[in-house]
């Protein structure tokens, strides 16, 4: 440690030390720390990402492309798209309603409500699936009734959608609530007193103010909705071509030692993750002041 601090000690008595110099770490420490950080990220983040692509193309592009001709793979892609196209808009509408009522009004119990909205994030994905089994499964609360009426919820699309909604529940709301709280109600009040209707105020004043935050929340919500594995795995029943989403199909193919096909489908999800990260970073750089200031820069 004494080598590290040596430059500072020798420089400290000099009268013309710039403010940057004393608040900067010694060059050696800087290089070591940057090296450690880069090495750690390379080992734990970059390598797993790179492996997805190299494994998918290990036997050539033709084998890679073949994966997508399999009807089961196509069914999995369609089911994933269908699930996300229901879950994301549902949570988007909820997020707007929750943010409007929480951010634009004051009432007791707000903190509790926000905590409850955040709840699904602290529940294990497997438990998120389990709770729907306890409600709709054959031994569940409504299992007997559903069975008697021939309604299939678990091991079918409805439960997959429900489990996906559960795990992606807070994304839009937790982005919009702090953002709309920061923005306050002054602009809406101005619009309303000038005679605009409530809906018009929402569409022309509130919505443009939160559009980037909304997009941000929707992006993250969608990425999780399309990639969710644990919760969906519990309720899906793993019926090929019927109740397998892309992540579940990846699992089946991998367990059959069909590496190329498993990683080819994984490439689809990894690309989605990269696009999501790209847009997310773009929003954070370009529109940082129009996002909720929650630990981003």
């Amino acid at each position, binding site marked *: 440690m004494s080598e590290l601090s040596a430059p500072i000690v020798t420089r400290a008595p000099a009268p013309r030390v710039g403010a940057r110099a004393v608040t900067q770490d010694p060059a050696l420490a800087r290089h070591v720390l940057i090296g450690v950080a880069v090495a750690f990220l390379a080992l734990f983040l970059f390598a797993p*990402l790179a492996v997805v692509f190299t494994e998918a193309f290990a036997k050539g592009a033709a084998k890679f492309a073949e994966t997508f001709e399999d009807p089961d793979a196509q069914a999995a892609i369609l089911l994933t798209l269908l699930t996300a196209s229901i879950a994301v808009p549902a949570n988007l509408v909820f997020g707007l309603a929750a943010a409007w009522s929480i951010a634009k009004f004051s009432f007791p119990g707000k903190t509790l409500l926000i905590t409850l909205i955040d709840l699904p994030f602290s529940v294990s994905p497997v438990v998120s699936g389990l*709770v729907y089994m306890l409600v709709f499964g054959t031994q569940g609360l409504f299992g007997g009734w559903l069975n008697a009426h021939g309604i299939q919820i678990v091991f079918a699309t409805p439960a997959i959608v429900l489990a996906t909604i559960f795990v992606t529940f807070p994304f839009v709301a937790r982005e919009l609530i702090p953002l709309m709280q920061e923005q306050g109600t002054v602009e809406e009040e101005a619009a309303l007193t000038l005679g605009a209707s409530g809906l018009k105020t929402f569409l022309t004043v509130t919505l443009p103010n939160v559009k980037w935050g909304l997009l941000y929340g929707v992006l993250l919500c969608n990425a999780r909705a399309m990639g969710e594995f644990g919760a969906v795995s519990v309720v899906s029943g793993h019926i090929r071509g019927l109740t397998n989403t892309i992540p579940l199909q990846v699992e089946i193919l991998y367990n059959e030692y069909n590496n190329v096909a498993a990683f080819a489908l994984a490439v689809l*999800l990894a690309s989605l*993750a990269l696009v999501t990260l790209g847009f997310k970073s773009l929003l954070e750089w370009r529109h940082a002041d129009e996002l909720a200031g929650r630990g981003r820069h």
Partner: protein
Amino acid sequence: MTTLARGRTRSFVAPSVIPGFGVTFGYTLLYLSLLVLFPLATLIWRSSGLGLSGLLAVAAEPRVAASLRTTFLIAFLAATTDLLFGLIIAWVLTRYAFPGRRLLDAFVDLPFALPTAVAGISLAALYAPNGWFGAPLADIGVKVAFTRFGIYVALVFVGLPFLVRTVQPIIAELEAELEEASATLGASRWRTARSVLLPPLVPALLTGFALAFARAVGEYGSVIFIAGNIAYVSEIAPLLIIVKLEQYDYAGATGIATIMLGISFGALLAINFIQAWSRRRFGHV
């Protein structure tokens, strides 16, 4: 008494010219209750049927006890690793300028964005005996895939962004005056780092640790491919829930889920306490 109560009901929401409270608040409560609170309540109701003795009996089953021990122990070790390296990464990304910094910064969120199943199979491929990392490690006699070490690797992966993203904003807000004062008073840079820079970061580090730990305890997708899932050795609690469900042992599954839920809420509560303490102590979270 009645008038007071009525007065209170009327002013549940503060008067405002903004319309739409009833509709949006009602919808929020309905949607939240139906999709989140009701299913979770069903779990609590089911497990209350087991009773405390039933819960303890589930937890005492040797296979369940082993999986809970594995899960919590490795989640703790992984979160500790994330704490150390997360702090270094957050410091480097916030304080230093170097080429590729922004790219690295964006990539820190990869574990949030990459589906867990994809992370799982790619980690398994990386650390398999013939994988990029698995092969050289096998040469020196270290086996990662299909062992507890594999679980650790996967949990370090999923927890990292929690640490980095919680600590980063606090590092950015550190006041330069304090560092300058410390330096002009003759402290070495190391001394300044230890006694001026580190203390205000402690609440954020603990919060990030709790978040990473909670996430690691519940993690499923990224773990099961690399863990090998050997009962009593490398089987995690979430997997055992699925095993119990497949055996139609709903009571067992509910029991494990309740124990895990209890721990997650404990972590959540701890975070709230840390943040309340931090606000008092440092005036920020």
